[in-house]
């Protein structure tokens, strides 16, 4: 994929954690990764490989133990980077509308503009009828839509998504994947999307990066050749199956390694 500029550059990034027993766990890296402007990058890897850690470092929620990540931003937005969390991270004490509106409020947009943007995003994600409802009344899929609407309403330059559909059932997952695909293709921006689903990565991504078992490193980096705009119809393309097979073969041994690492050494 040819992208005009480079948006995110990770260089030699590692992260270790000190556990309560004061021993050190090497969770991530070293990782070198370059993400283009308006590129949709998917990151896959065995659970516990540090994908979420990498995302949190890019987000600035967590500092790397060594190395550096540079994120290019325009400097015009108060909130240049948005994140969608796996457990939604939406607030039970705010209505759906208030949740989606929060980022716009915090960036000081006038009420009329906020209302328009929120209505637009609620409509696009099928939440219009639930605008004044509290999240506790919503299903998991609805809550995740609220979370996505909140992230997109501020029109971020970079969108970080941490296994956003992991907790959803397969059908709903496909529906939301299609929605995300359509939304992104209508208005492209840089996305880093962490998932453990290879199909999801191939469907959504311009590029898929495969990470190793802990400590996670980049072990494969493939361009996804399907034309944009895509639809979920590409799932039936023979090339889709072939690419999935390739990804899985590079990932398989890592998944087993991560699994074995947690077993009794005897």
């Amino acid at each position: 994929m040819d992208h005009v500029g480079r948006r995110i550059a990770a260089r030699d990034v590692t992260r270790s954690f000190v556990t309560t027993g004061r021993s050190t766990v090497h969770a991530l890296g070293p990782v070198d990764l370059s993400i283009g402007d308006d590129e949709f990058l998917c990151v896959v890897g065995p659970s516990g490989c540090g994908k979420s850690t990498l995302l949190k470092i890019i987000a600035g929620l967590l500092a790397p133990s060594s190395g550096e990540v540079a994120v290019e931003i325009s400097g015009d937005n108060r909130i240049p980077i948005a994140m969608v969390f796996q457990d939604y991270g939406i607030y039970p004490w705010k209505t759906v509308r208030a949740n989606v509106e929060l980022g716009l409020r915090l960036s000081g947009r006038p009420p009329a503009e906020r209302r328009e943007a929120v209505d637009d995003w609620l409509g696009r994600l099928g939440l219009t009828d639930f605008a004044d409802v509290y999240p506790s009344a919503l299903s998991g899929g609805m809550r995740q839509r609220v979370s996505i609407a909140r992230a997109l309403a501020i029109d971020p330059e970079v969108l970080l998504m941490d296994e956003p559909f992991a907790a959803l059932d397969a059908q709903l997952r496909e529906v939301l994947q299609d929605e995300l695909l359509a939304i992104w293709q209508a208005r492209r921006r840089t996305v880093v999307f962490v998932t453990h689903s290879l199909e999801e990565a191939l469907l959504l991504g311009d590029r898929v990066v495969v990470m190793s078992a802990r400590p996670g490193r980049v072990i494969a980096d493939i361009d996804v050749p399907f034309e944009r705009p895509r639809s979920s119809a590409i799932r039936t393309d023979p090339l889709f199956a072939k690419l999935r097979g390739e990804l899985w073969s590079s990932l398989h041994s890592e998944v087993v390694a991560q699994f074995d690492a947690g077993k009794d050494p005897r």
Partner: protein
Amino acid sequence: MSTTLYRRPGVAELHPVRTRRRWNATKVVLGVSVPVGFVVLWQLSAVLEWVDPFLYPPPSRLIPGLVALWEDGKLVEATVTSVRRVILGYLLGAAGGLVVGLLMGMSRVLRAALEPFSWAWYTVPKLALLPIFLTIFGFGDTSVVVLIAATVYFFVWISVMSAVMAVPTGYREAALMLRANRWEMFRHVLLPAALPEIFVGLRISAGVSVLMLVGIEFVISDQGLGYLIEQGRTLLLLEQSYVGIVLVALIGYLFALLVKAIGRLFIRWTSDDNAIIPT
């Protein structure tokens, strides 16, 4: 694009051990320097005569006062009496509040029956009940202990009940699916889940029990630190009052600290100093 955000290791990442040590040292320094600063300011206010040092004795005059009280044994006697009363009253009240709070937290029926009545009692100032307690238990330790217990009971009851009720449905359902019975659900889910909040209540009521102690001793004026403070005031031995006040503050602090330390023994799954706040 005009700006670049850099994500780089901070001091905490580059030197984790040193950072933790430094923070531990900083915590002690900050915790000590505020009270020390207070004492210095207090002394200065007397030395520079911002206030009348006779009516507001400075810390330096408390030392002779302390020595005098120590030498005639009044200090030790008062402290021992007060500590005994407050500990007994607290234990009694906390145990009662804990049991009733847990039961009411788990039972809708008990809540429906007892909540309105209990809330009404909670708002009655317990000092107003002192005459009744004096009639029942006589003039002395028992009345003080029971009155402290009655006060602590309500604080603990409320915090324990609300802590149990706030345990999320997800935890309860998971336990139900493991075929946990009432007792097992309580033992493995409700009690541990509620424990952090319960200990907040226990710490608050540790402070309240000392508050109550001094109030009662003020009124019945027989023994203890409250009596010492009151006596100092009436006899214009203000140093004695101030020594008493400082001692009460110290006891209250150590008491709350003790409760917190006991809480840490039970609550090992959370660390208490990791709340994220924007810098």
